[in-house]
């Protein structure tokens, strides 16, 4: 190529490349999963606008998202084992790998360099470079029957660690990725029966497993892993008839208000209140159905709760101080997920069967606006990039 032609091309090329991409900050952006069509919407939370529509992400039932620390890239974990890196400014897939047969979510490391995926099939956790999605580590789970245990509740933790649970074999593992070439595992084999999800406190200190197969929760203090797991709320629900659970609750994030933490009960139509200083039950709030998500507004003043089938047309708002339900909203069938804007003045709610996102003012608890979305499920805003465990 002649130098002159080359220089002319160079002048135009960046312009051509940038033409499709937005030139803006990403702090008020987010991604909404369209579960049935294998696509996502990139949205603007200030303008209440859809910015782009990205397709070709495979089976997104039960998909979740984490963000790069520059809040430009979204990593989408699909049900079919797909891990997709999206550039939200360009509204394009940067890279996509099919890393497993069946997965359930993931996490990004403290330094932002590693993305870990939790797999059902083959059971285990795989760790990838967040840059090019190349495989860094493969951590198979404990064998169970003719397969390997499913892994659940994968979160990132301080000191370049990941924590997750083994559903079938009732274990909790800490994966230390300080040296990516030598992943170090610490295993706790006495978690309890069927841990179905896990969460970590916002400071990254405590990891808690929800148990489906027995009463209570398993607590791990990551400042003192040598002390092992401690069973908490183990008297909870004893001797009571469990109600059928038509959708497993999610332990995402940590609904904390003051010294109290709030969790969805399993098999009881209640939100559990726990005192965080001694991890004892501090009350139960009867609610409309089996809670799925119990989310605290960022200031902790309100809790927003959605429910499992057949009560998934409702959202209830609880006053975190009085523990009273202050509002019951009929959002519509298939109300699947809720996400607060970074400082909590709004909450965005996905309503699958209405093909829409409803945006509520959290102070007035009134509907502000709606956005069209095809069978929306998870909503993930970029401020998650800087939160441990999200």
């Amino acid at each position, binding site marked *: 190529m002649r130098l002159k032609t080359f220089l002319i091309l160079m002048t135009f090329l960046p312009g051509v490349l940038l033409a499709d991409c937005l030139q803006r900050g990403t702090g008020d952006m987010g991604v909404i999963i369209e579960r049935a069509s294998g696509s996502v919407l990139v949205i603007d939370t200030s303008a209440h606008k859809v910015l782009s529509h990205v397709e070709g992400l495979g089976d997104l*039932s039960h998909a979740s998202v984490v963000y790069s620390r520059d809040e430009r890239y979204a990593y989408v974990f699909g049900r079919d084992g797909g891990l997709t890196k999206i550039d939200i400014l360009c509204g394009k897939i940067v890279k996509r790998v099919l890393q497993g047969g069946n997965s359930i979510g993931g996490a990004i490391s403290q330094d932002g360099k590693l993305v870990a995926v939790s797999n059902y099939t083959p059971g285990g956790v795989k760790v990838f470079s967040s840059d090019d999605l190349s495989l860094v580590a493969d951590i198979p789970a404990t064998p169970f029957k003719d397969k390997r245990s499913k892994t659940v509740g994968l979160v990132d933790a301080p000191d370049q660690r990941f924590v997750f649970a083994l559903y079938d074999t009732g274990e909790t593992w800490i994966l230390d990725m300080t040296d990516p070439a030598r992943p170090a595992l610490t295993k706790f084999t006495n978690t309890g029966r069927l841990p179905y999800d896990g969460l970590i406190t916002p400071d990254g200190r405590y990891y808690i497993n929800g148990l489906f197969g027995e009463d209570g929760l398993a607590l791990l203090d990551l400042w003192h892993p040598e002390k092992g797991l401690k069973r908490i709320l183990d008297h909870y629900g004893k001797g009571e008839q469990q109600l059928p659970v038509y959708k497993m609750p999610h332990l995402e994030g940590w609904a904390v208000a003051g010294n109290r933490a709030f969790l969805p009960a399993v098999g009881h139509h209640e939100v559990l209140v726990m005192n965080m200083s001694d991890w004892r039950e501090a009350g139960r709030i009867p609610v409309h159905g089996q809670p799925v998500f119990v989310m605290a507004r960022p200031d902790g003043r309100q809790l927003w709760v959605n429910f499992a089938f057949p009560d998934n047309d409702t959202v209830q708002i609880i006053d975190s101080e009085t523990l009273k339900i202050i509002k019951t909203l009929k959002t519509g069938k298939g109300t699947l997920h809720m996400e607060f804007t970074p400082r909590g003045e709004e909450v965005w709610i996905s309503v699958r069967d209405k093909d829409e996102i409803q945006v509520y003012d959290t102070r007035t608890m009134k509907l502000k606006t709606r956005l069209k979305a095809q069978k929306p499920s998870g909503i993930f805003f970029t401020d998650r990039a800087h939160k441990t465990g999200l």
Partner: protein
Amino acid sequence: MKCFRFATYAVLCLSLSGGALAAPTADRKAELMYLLAQDCGACHGMRLKGGLGPSLKPEALRQWDAEQLAQTILHGRPGTPMPPWSPFMSHQEALWLAQQLKEGISQ
């Protein structure tokens, strides 16, 4: 359904309750398929390849006949997260759903 004793209602009552034993109507079939993809899909995967719950593809269900599967749908599996769906569908509807699963649902 409450059946009235009045003779005049007898015919209507019989025809309505008889409807529950026949194959589901086209509308009801669509509802059941939606339930399967969206709500069963929460655990079994929207494409039924499995998740927290096992795969519901025909090859994974070979060892059970449709009636056995219908019983599992209606009454759940104690000791596992599979709940009973009998509040939401009749035996005939569960059997129809089980037959669809055995045959395989193209998605």
